[in-house]
Every structure is written in structure tokens, then in C-alpha cells.
């Protein structure tokens, strides 16, 4: 059971890190390229949100395999676990997205 909670935390923070790190460093690249950094960060935020979840889950196929087994072989426990993992990754990505999104309205720091 402990591994389950640990995996939830892993998924949450990995997707959060992918979002924040990707956007921050994308912003640096935009500055170097002569593009508006904040706008680029927000564009990136929307683009990489779904990928952050996928990265956190370690690729799409193992998750889908578990979902398939859960649905067709009646392995409900595995199915529920996988859904919770996906939800925690989704939550991490969404919080990362919101953090970057609210940065825009913060005005100059």
C-alpha cells in the first residue's frame, strides 16, 4: 500500500516538474531567440500539459495495458489504481499549468 501512495506522489511531482521546468526553460530559450518569454511560456504550457501526464506515467502503453486487463479481465483493483495514478499526474500538470498561468497576471515581480 505504501508503494501505491509513493507512486501517487511520484506521478504528481513528475508532471508538476515537467510543466514548470519545461515552461521556465522554454521561456529562457524564447528570450535567447528574441521572442516574448511570457507568451511563449503560456503557449508551451498548453502544448505540454498532456505530455507531462504521459511522462509522469512512464509512457502510454503500460497504463493502457493495465486498463485493458482491468476492463476485460475484471482486474478492478489495478484499474482503479491506474486511474488514481492518471488523476494524480493530471492534478500535478494542472497545478503547474495554473502556476504559470497566474504568473501572467502577477505583473512585474
Amino acid at each position, binding site marked *: 500500500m505504501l508503494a501505491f501512495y509513493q507512486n501517487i506522489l511520484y506521478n504528481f511531482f513528475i508532471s508538476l516538474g515537467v510543466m514548470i521546468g519545461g515552461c*521556465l*526553460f522554454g*521561456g*529562457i530559450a524564447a*528570450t535567447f531567440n528574441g*521572442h*516574448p*518569454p*511570457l*507568451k511563449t*511560456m503560456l503557449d508551451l504550457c498548453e502544448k505540454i500539459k498532456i505530455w507531462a501526464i504521459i511522462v509522469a506515467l512512464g509512457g502510454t502503453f503500460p497504463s493502457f495495458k493495465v486498463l485493458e486487463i482491468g476492463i476485460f479481465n475484471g482486474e478492478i483493483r489495478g484499474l482503479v489504481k491506474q486511474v488514481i495514478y492518471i488523476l494524480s499526474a493530471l492534478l500535478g500538470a494542472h497545478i503547474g499549468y495554473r502556476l504559470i498561468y497566474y*504568473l501572467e497576471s502577477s*505583473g*512585474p*515581480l
Partner: protein
Amino acid sequence: MKRPYSLIAFMGLGFLLGLATMNLFQMHTLDRLYRVQHQLTNQIIDKDIKLERLNDSIKKNNTVFVKDIKIHLNFEGNLLLKDMIEDNIRFFLSDLVGKELADIDGEMIYKILNNRIVEIENKNINLSINYLIISETINISVNARVIDS
């Protein structure tokens, strides 16, 4: 052997984090400047189109107008100060653009600018005219020097 690598890693991480922090603090300013640049570019495009149309209509009327003013400024000093002096001179002459060439009074331009003392950033600057050519483009050469107040 391991220690230099860890030092390099720390320096690299510090550099990247520094870059990210600096970017985080300046991104609003940068975005605003890019926006202003974009707006100004659009304004220039818009005004270019209007000017082109205006030129076409002037050509049809066969009247000669003053289209531009070129200021040749001789000033030995800071380039930003030079730009400010040029802006100041342009301010005095800006009304001439668009006027009929026959209506331009060369002596008046000379009297306006020659031996004029302008104050820019607490510095008194004396202007003297080298030459003045009045045509579709008014060419004016001005010597500027800082005088002790």
C-alpha cells in the same frame, strides 16, 4: 577526480537557475517591450500606406511640397546626447513638412536655429548653421557644442 565534476555540475545548475530567475523577473518587461515594438511596427506600416497615397495625390496636383527634413549634426560627444539635440532641432522644423516649397522662408529657419542655445540634460548647447538647402528635402547642417553655463 570526482570533485571537479561535481563543482562543474554545481556551477552549471547555478547558472541555469540564475538564468531562470533572471528571466522570471524580466519576462513582463520583455513581453511589454515586444508588444510596444509590434504596435509601433504596425503604426509605421499604416503611416507608410497613408504617405504613399498622399504622395500620389500630390503628384496629380503638380505642386512641390516639402517631404522630408535631413539634419546633419556635427557634435563631438555622447551619441545619446547627439540624438537628443537632433530631436530638438527636428521639433523646430517639423512644421515645415507638408508645406508648399514656395511658402518656405529660408531666412526664418536660419534665424530660428542660428546661435540658439538649447538646454538638454542641464547642459547648454549652442547651435550654429553650416548650410541650409531648401528643396523637396530640406537639408540642414548644424554645428553643436556644449557651452559652459
